[in-house]
């Protein structure tokens, strides 16, 4: 309940300030436009569109998801949060907020890809949905804990992608593989190893994040 209240506060605040939503929307618009201009009338392969999808998702996440903690630090309200909630409540609340943002952002990106790129064809939709679900959860967890780490640093903008890259790399590589399988029409049964890697990544990141957050949150 406390976690949900913190999420509600953040969501209400986001709707009024548009701190993260505007950054995400602009980034999605700009990157997809740049891709479309650079492709021109060229016909690109299915696999390339699948790869570009996760590239756009990765960089969009870099542009907007750090805001959960950075906005608190920039507005000076981090101490206020310290005074009203335990670290686990704060992390859970911020994680739910980022989960919602990631799902919204990735639905929009995937929808735009399917509309704008004729070669973006998913043959096994269920497999893609599984990858999408666990991939989004992984991105949200990693982005939230990295945002907490960098929020007190002076060069947040640079540090966030630099720290995120090695942490998100195994996740993105697995997602690329699963997207390729979904485009090939492979069955879920033949992709179980990759799905297991995704689930393990999410579980490990979630456990490590909860264990680490107390130390990160302490000044």
């Amino acid at each position, binding site marked *: 309940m406390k976690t949900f209240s913190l999420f509600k506060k953040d969501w209400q605040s986001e709707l009024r300030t548009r701190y993260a939503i505007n950054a995400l929307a602009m980034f999605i618009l700009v990157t997809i436009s740049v891709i479309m201009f650079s492709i021109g009338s060229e016909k690109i392969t299915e696999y390339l569109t699948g790869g570009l999808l996760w590239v756009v998702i990765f960089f969009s996440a870099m542009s907007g998801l750090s805001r959960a903690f950075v906005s608190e630090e920039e507005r*000076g*309200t981090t101490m206020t949060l310290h005074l009203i*909630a335990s670290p686990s409540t704060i992390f859970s609340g911020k994680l739910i907020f980022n989960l919602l943002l990631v799902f919204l952002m990735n639905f929009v990106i995937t929808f735009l890809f399917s509309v704008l790129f004729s070669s973006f064809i998913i043959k096994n939709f269920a497999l893609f949905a599984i990858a999408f679900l666990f991939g989004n959860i992984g991105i949200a967890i990693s982005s939230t804990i990295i945002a907490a780490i960098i929020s007190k640093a002076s060069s947040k903008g640079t540090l966030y992608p630099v720290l995120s890259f090695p942490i998100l790399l195994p996740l993105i590589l697995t997602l690329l593989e699963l997207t390729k399988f979904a485009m090939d029409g492979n069955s879920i049964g033949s992709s179980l190893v990759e799905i297991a890697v995704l689930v393990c990544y999410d579980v490990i990141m979630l456990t490590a994040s909860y264990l680490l957050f107390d130390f990160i949150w302490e000044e």
Partner: protein
Amino acid sequence: MTDYTVELDNLVKYFGRRLIFNGINFSFSAQNIYGISGPNGSGKSTLVKIIANLISPTRGKVIHKNNLKEVEPVKLHNHIGFVAPYLFLYDEFTAEENLLHFSNIRGISFDKERSDYLLNELKLIDRKNDLVRGYSSGMKQRLKFIFALLHQPKLIILDEPTSNLDNPGKEKFYELIKKEAKNNLVIIASNEDSDIALCS
């Protein structure tokens, strides 16, 4: 009656290589108002932040006890009310929305009667539905008092509490703090003579 105590056990704080204070031992008990005074940069704010568990000491520890039982650090925030010039509330919310969110996040039901009582006492009742963004610094300071007192904390920590307040605001603050100190523990970090004069 509250039996809330805070014990400082050999506190040492360094920022980098700079020693802020060394070997502080003290015991605070409820129904008292304590004052921490000293020149700028002497570590008053650092000390109250350590007491409030907002930052960690380099060495030593702070033990909070409520009715002789040690308070767990993760639950400490429920017992503390804190006011400081470097504390900020959410500008994009109204005063009442801020207080409502804070109560919900603490996991306690919003006490509208107490909220209205405090808003009325601190002359903010007519502006409670205005965004905090539009408040003056003095009004924001008054709202911070309400934030600190709304959940009826047992330990009230006030760092430079009367900064930005006008004279009627200061008088009202002194009145409220004297009332709170009848049951609770109050610690004031300030160099204002009138603030320190409150100490028992």
